[in-house]
């Protein structure tokens, strides 16, 4: 019984890995003030391109690289249209989201049902023997390790390095960043491309591992990208919270599957759809921390718990002030 639960939770961590990576990618992009709404399309297109690359070469790494390259390319298109050609970030992002989705179905049509290599789990020596933690975190695929690693790395990058400071400044007040000699639009280009490449890595993580193969619109990836966008916002543009959101989402999905078997009276559709509204409710609750009444409510709790929840004096979880606002210098 115990091990069943462990296997289930390890599965949650594994299936959340592409969402974690994509949401951190999107967080980096949005921190620079660029809104990339094409995430859903990028995930589908890169799942397809990564699958074909891995199928053609028989090489997994080629598949992952192809996915990232696809993402980077779409990111570049978005940056070019919005920064260089001065078009609306929302409009271009939405068009790309739908264009890439349909493109993936169209281009991938000839490869449906083929078999490409699949990534298997690689238990880490020694670490995987640790009870409980070992089977949760260290008996996974390299891509899961990468997703776990991406959380501290992005946190350190954003908060502890010169480049992270530049990134934040550009998203907060580009005109002030410019006055400090920072090339605002170059930074935005870079992070749009980098963030999209990370989103593009999520595609092949699905098509070469979690949901192996390419089955067109039956692949079941459509919609994940929108969840990634929501998690980025509710996670307050903080990689740690964003990752928590991703794990929460997959946990809810898993519970839905488990209870589908046990609660035969409840229509299965209800349990399949339930994670989405539940997710929104939970995240809304998390965000209530910004509200006054929440602060006064938790002040009744014992100090250590209060301190954990309280946001007083800490940085607010507000959006980058210039998110979605173009920067032009005269």
């Amino acid at each position, binding site marked *: 019984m115990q091990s069943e639960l462990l296997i289930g939770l390890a599965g949650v961590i594994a299936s959340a890995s592409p969402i974690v990576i994509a949401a951190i990618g999107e967080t980096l992009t949005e921190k620079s003030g660029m809104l990339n709404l094409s995430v859903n399309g990028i995930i589908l297109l890169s799942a397809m391109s990564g699958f074909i690359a891995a199928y053609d070469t028989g090489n997994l790494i080629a598949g992952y690289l192809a996915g990232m390259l696809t993402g980077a390319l779409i990111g570049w298109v978005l940056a070019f249209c919005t920064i260089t050609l001065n078009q609306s970030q929302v409009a271009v992002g939405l068009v790309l989201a739908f264009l890439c989705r349909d493109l993936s179905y169209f281009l991938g049509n000839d490869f449906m049902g083929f078999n490409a290599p699949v990534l298997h789990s690689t238990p880490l020596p020694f670490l995987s023997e640790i009870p409980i933690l070992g089977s949760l975190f260290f008996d996974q695929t390299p891509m899961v390790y990468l997703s776990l690693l991406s959380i501290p790395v992005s946190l350190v990058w954003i908060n*502890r*390095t*010169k*480049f992270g*400071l*530049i990134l*934040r*400044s550009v998203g*907060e*007040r580009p*005109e*002030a*960043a*410019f*006055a*400090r*000699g*920072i*090339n605002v639009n170059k930074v935005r280009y870079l992070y749009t491309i980098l963030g999209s490449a990370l989103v593009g890595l999520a595609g092949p993580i699905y098509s070469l591992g979690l949901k192996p193969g390419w089955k067109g619109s039956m692949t079941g990836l459509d919609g994940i990208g929108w969840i990634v966008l929501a998690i980025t916002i509710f996670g307050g543009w903080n990689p740690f919270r964003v990752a928590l959101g991703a794990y929460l989402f997959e946990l809810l999905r898993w519970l839905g599957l488990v209870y589908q078997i046990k609660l035969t009276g409840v229509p299965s559709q209800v349990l399949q759809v339930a994670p989405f509204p539940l997710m929104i409710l939970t995240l809304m609750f998390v965000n209530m921390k910004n509200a006054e009444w929440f602060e006064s409510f938790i002040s009744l709790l014992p100090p250590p718990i209060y301190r954990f929840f309280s946001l007083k004096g800490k*940085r*607010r979880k*507000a959006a980058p*002030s210039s998110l979605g606002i173009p920067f032009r210098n*005269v």
Partner: protein
Amino acid sequence: MEIEIRNIYKSFGKVHANIGISLTIHAGEILGVLGENGAGKTTLMKILAGLQPCDSGEILIDGKPVHFHSANTALDLGIGMLSQDPLDFPMLTIFDNLYLGRRKRFFIQRNRFSKQVEKMEDLLGFQFKLNDLVETLSIGERQQLEILRLLVYGSELIILDEPTTGISAQQKKQLFELLKRLAGFGKTIIFVTHKLGEINELCQRTIILRQGKLISDVVLPCESSLLIQSMFGKAIDLQSPGDASQFEKHFEIQHLVIKDARFFSNPVDLNIRKGEILGLAGMEGSGQKTFLRTLAGLEKPINGMFLDEGYSLHWNSPHSFTKRGIYFMPASRMEEGLIQGMTLQEHFILSQTKDDFFVDRDESHKITEMRIREFTIRGFSSSTAEELSGGNQQRLLIAMLHENARLLLLENPTRGLDIESTNWMWKKLHERCKKGASILFASADIDELLRFSNRILVFFGGRISEPYPSQMLNSEKLGALIGGEGW
């Protein structure tokens, strides 16, 4: 460090912001840059700080020509600028804000940099909590923070663009003391302002800019009248419109206290008479706009009553203001006044306060055609607002003011208009006055104010003067008042 500027030209489209400016700045001096709004002060300073390229001209430091590719090049050469609004990051910590932009190491060097900052803080007598957010500071403290930052980066020349606009008298005193101390350390200071008093108080020398040209270079102290003369140009004495005090009382303002982004005003009491024209003078952003918007019911004052022939108007409903014939015309024609993409006819439909559900196309078409003819707007009832030229947009705005308007609140009604359009505009406005309407208008043009107003209110840094009958003023006196002198 000696800096020489040679023959700087800069234009924005048709606007010539800097026309052939040459200047030498000596080490350790406090140089004033004086000029009214739009004179080109900020433009020149941005060029000097590498924030904006010039069209032509040269900058030499210690005799060597330099080229600024970005603000960093200028900062490397020891030139730092404090912008009109502090260009900092409210959402970042004070530490991050100081650190940003100039460090080379990959990881943020917290301890080392904190020590460096503390040393400089000791020298200047500042005390910042480095982990607080910048948004917790006042405007004055944010200025100090910017000065601290520039000094930490080793700036030799510090440019301050209108630094006294948003700060208290106490903070201003501190700032001046600090600047004098810095000059004592051998730093060069350029102090940009439109306030005469400050120049005499702080600077040893000042240049005066007017309409993009360097008009004079004066050693201080010197007579204010001389500075005013250069700042505003020769006064053209025009006949003032005379006394309106025997006109019938119309509107009454009691104890009105308005709130701007930066200040609360003093309480204002004012009678507005039928057919009277009241001018609002002052540098832009001194509260005139808020004053007009408040009287139009678009903003809520802190305190006060607005009586229309004894009837007290409710601050919370702009609609009831228009119903009583009070109309506001904003300065930004395309942003606030007109609606992009809508035709002239649609504008006229919107401006009628009829409560009909359906639009009577035929009637509104007739009205539109009539107004286009009457106001000689060069356009058709089907043209969109942005297709019109600036002057014609202004005509459209005037034409839209309702026939039975009783109080017109006009913000810079003739800005950007050529002489012909300006004269036409005032002809139309005088017609309204003859019909009994009262007019309040804000303007940056001293001559226009003196020529058309019966009385003038002067705005300065949140203070609002008693109304001056315009015969009592001349352009020098009014210029001094606008510059904050003689209050």
